[in-house]
């Protein structure tokens, strides 16, 4: 189920993201460090962390859909706000997202990314996404 959301996304592959379990019912993702994720010397690029948060958000919505749901819906971010709280080190980064609200058209999502300690996030994001049916009406 949730794993498919990640494996179907080329951008998740590009970032090396894998689903490693669940947290509070939502997919738990891991992004192992790779040279292509670096920013300033010794730290992760903020954009790579934002990408991980985006994938976590999509995976969280996908996990709520019925079987095959992921193939029917397109999630289109409308606004994305990322707060960077700590520099990301060159180690694995984890992320999980929570649906604050999922309506028929809009999903409001909160996503968090951390490294060593889930209680000490490197970044959190709030995203408002349009949910669009892929099948022709």
């Amino acid at each position, binding site marked *: 189920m949730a794993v498919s959301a990640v494996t179907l996304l080329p951008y998740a592959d590009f970032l090396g993201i894998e689903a490693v379990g669940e947290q509070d019912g939502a997919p738990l993702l891991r992004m192992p460090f790779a040279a292509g994720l670096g920013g300033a010397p010794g730290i992760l690029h903020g954009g790579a962390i*934002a990408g991980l948060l985006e994938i976590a958000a999509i995976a969280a919505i996908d996990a709520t859909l019925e079987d095959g749901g992921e193939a029917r819906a397109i999630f289109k971010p409308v*606004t994305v706000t*990322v707060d960077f709280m700590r520099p990301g080190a060159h180690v694995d980064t984890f992320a999980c997202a929570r649906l604050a609200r999922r309506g028929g058209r809009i999903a409001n999502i909160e996503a968090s990314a951390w490294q060593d300690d889930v209680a000490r996030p490197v970044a959190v994001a709030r995203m408002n996404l349009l949910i669009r049916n892929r099948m022709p009406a």
Partner: protein
Amino acid sequence: MSVPDPAAPAPFDPAAFLAAARDGHAVALGLRHRGHGDDWCELAIPYDRRLVSDAVSGILASGPIVSLMDTACTFAVWRRRGAQRPHATMDLRIDYLRPARPGATVVGRGSCYRLTQRVAFVRGTAHDGDPDDPLAHVAGTFMLLDQWR
């Protein structure tokens, strides 16, 4: 007589910076330099199917555009500060006005419109061919990690 100060940092050159980079996220994404001024920098990200969030539609994910704008805004701050100095992105908000057209290069311009002792304020837009038809607007702040001088 003026003597060059060996401690004075060279002005930040975004094109040279990208050309010299051998790894890191900007290289992985294939970011290109398009232009810069005293307080702005314009970069481009060529279309790459590995960066799409939906294999069917072929629309770029949001993350690559965040990375493009974060980097363009970072370079804008370094242009305005006169040199590459440490800072950290504090927050970045992106409003997606429309999806990027599949296959199109996305161009992002960031500018640093206000600089204080500790914070740089940035904003920018991204488009895929027509600057008058932007696909995203961004606003953000950077925390400066050393003293302005």
